[in-house]
C-alpha cells in the first residue's frame, strides 16, 4: 500500500465515490429489471394455483408446473371465477390472484377486514376452490396454495418457501410431502374446522387414513412442518363461513 491511500481524506473520498457508484449501479439494475421480475412472479402465481388444482406436468416423482409460455392461457381456461371475500361481501375480481397475502395479513393485524382471495376452477367436471396461505417456517416465509372441494376436502396442495434448509425444510415443495395432503379432510363430521397437522410418528407414513387430520412430517424439519400446520389452520379457517354458505 502506498502512503497516498493511507490518508483520511483519501479514505473518505474513496468511500463516498464507491457508495455512489455501487448505489447507482444497483438502483439501475433493480429498476430496469423490475418489470421482468414482476412478470415472472405473476406467471409463477398462476402456475402455483394451477398446480394445486392438478393442472401440472408432473412425471412419476418430480413436481413440474405447466410451462411458462402457456400458463396464462391455461389459467384463463381452468380458473372460471376469482372472488374476493371480505366479511360478508363477496366480489368477483379477475385480478384477485394478484392480491398480496402478506400485505393482507398485516392489514388484518392492524384491524382492517382482510381480503380473502379464492380461485374457483373447473377440471374434468369437478369444481376446485383454491385458497392461498402464508406463514412462517424456520428461517423465513413459507406459503402455499390449497385446492379444496366444496366440503373442504383437500384435492391438492402446493407449498413453497423463501429460505428453508435444503434437504430438510425445503422438502415441503417436494411431491412426497405435498401429495400427502390430497384427500385429507379439514372439517370434522360435525362441521367444525380442524385443519391438518404435520405430525411426527403418526403411524401412517403411507397416508392411507384420510380423516385423521394428519400428514406425515419430514424428519429433521419440525419447525417448518409446524409452520405448515399453523398456516393451514389460521388461513384456511377464514374461508369456513364461505364454504358453509355454499351449502345453504
Amino acid at each position, binding site marked *: *500500500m*502506498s502512503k497516498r*491511500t*493511507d490518508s483520511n481524506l*483519501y*479514505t473518505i473520498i*474513496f*468511500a463516498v465515490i*464507491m*457508495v455512489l457508484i*455501487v448505489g447507482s*449501479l*444497483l438502483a439501475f*439494475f*433493480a429498476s430496469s*429489471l423490475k418489470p*421482468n*421480475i414482476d412478470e*415472472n412472479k405473476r406467471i*409463477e402465481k398462476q402456475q402455483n394455483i394451477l398446480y394445486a388444482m392438478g393442472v401440472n406436468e408432473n412425471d412419476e*416423482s*418430480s413436481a413440474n408446473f405447466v410451462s*411458462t409460455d402457456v400458463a396464462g392461457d391455461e389459467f384463463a381456461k381452468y380458473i372460471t371465477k376469482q372472488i374476493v371475500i371480505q366479511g360478508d361481501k363477496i366480489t368477483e375480481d379477475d385480478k384477485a390472484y394478484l392480491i398480496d397475502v402478506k400485505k393482507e395479513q398485516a392489514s388484518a393485524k392492524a384491524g382492517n377486514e382482510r381480503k380473502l382471495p379464492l380461485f374457483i376452477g373447473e377440471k374434468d367436471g369437478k369444481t376446485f376452490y383454491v385458497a392461498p396461505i402464508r406463514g412462517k417456517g424456520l428461517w423465513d416465509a413459507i406459503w402455499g396454495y390449497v385446492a379444496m372441494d366444496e366440503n373442504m376436502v383437500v384435492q391438492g396442495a402446493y407449498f413453497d418457501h*423463501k*429460505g*428453508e*434448509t*435444503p*434437504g*430438510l425444510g*425445503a422438502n415441503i415443495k417436494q411431491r412426497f410431502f405435498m401429495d400427502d395432503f390430497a384427500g385429507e379432510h379439514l372439517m370434522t363430521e360435525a362441521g367444525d374446522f380442524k385443519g391438518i397437522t404435520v405430525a411426527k410418528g403418526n403411524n401412517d*407414513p*403411507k397416508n392411507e387414513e384420510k380423516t385423521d387430520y394428519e400428514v406425515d412430517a419430514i*424428519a*429433521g424439519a419440525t419447525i417448518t412442518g409446524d409452520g405448515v400446520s399453523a398456516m393451514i389452520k389460521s388461513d384456511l379457517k377464514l374461508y369456513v363461513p364461505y364454504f358453509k354458505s355454499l351449502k345453504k
Partner: protein
Amino acid sequence: MGLLSKKDAVLITDPLLDNNPITIQVLGICSALAITAELKASIVMAVSVMFVLGLGNVVISLMRNIIPSKIRIIVQLVVVATLVIIVDLVLKAFAYELSKTLSVFVGLIITNCIIMGRFEAFALGNGPWRSFLDGIGNAVGYGLILVAVGFFRELLGSGTLLGFKVLGDPIEKTGLYAIGYENNGFMLLSPMALIVVGIIIWVQRTKNKSLIEEN
C-alpha cells in the same frame, strides 16, 4: 497444461488438494455444514461460489492499488455483495426457475469466508489473471469437498442421490430397505457434516504427512 505457465497452473492445482480451502485453510466451513444435506445443493453452491470468487478476485485485483488500506475489508464486502445482488437480479429476470433454486445460497455466498479470505490473501497483492486462476482453483477445491460431503450425507441420510432413490424405497420397503436397512436421519443434521469434513481431513493428512502441523 500447455495453456498456463507452470507457476500459474499451481494456482489452480494447489487448492484442490494440498492447500484446499476447507480441509487445510479451514475456510468456508459454515456453508459446507449448512447446505450439504443434499448433493444437488452442494453442486449449485459450488458453481455459484466459483462464479463470484473468480469475478470478485479480478475486480479486487484491478482495484488493489487504489483501495485505502483502512477500509479494505469493507470495500471487499461491498464488491462481493454488489456482484451477488446483480447476479441474483439478472437471474430473477431471465432465469426465474434457476434463481429460485439459488435463493438460499445468495446470502451464504456473501458471508462465505473463502471469498473474503482469497480477496485479502491473494487478490490484493496479485494481478487480475493470476487472481482469476486463484479464485477458480479455490472454488473448485471448495466444491470438491462440498460434493463429497453432500454425496455421503444424502446417500446415508436420505438414501437418495440427486433425488433418485438409489437404495430403494424406505416406505415401500424395497431394495436395501427390504433387508432391514434404515436411513440415518442424523446424517441430515449439521453436526454430521462436521464429522464428515473431519474424516476427510483425517484421511488427507494420513496420506500426506507433510500437511500435519507441528505444534
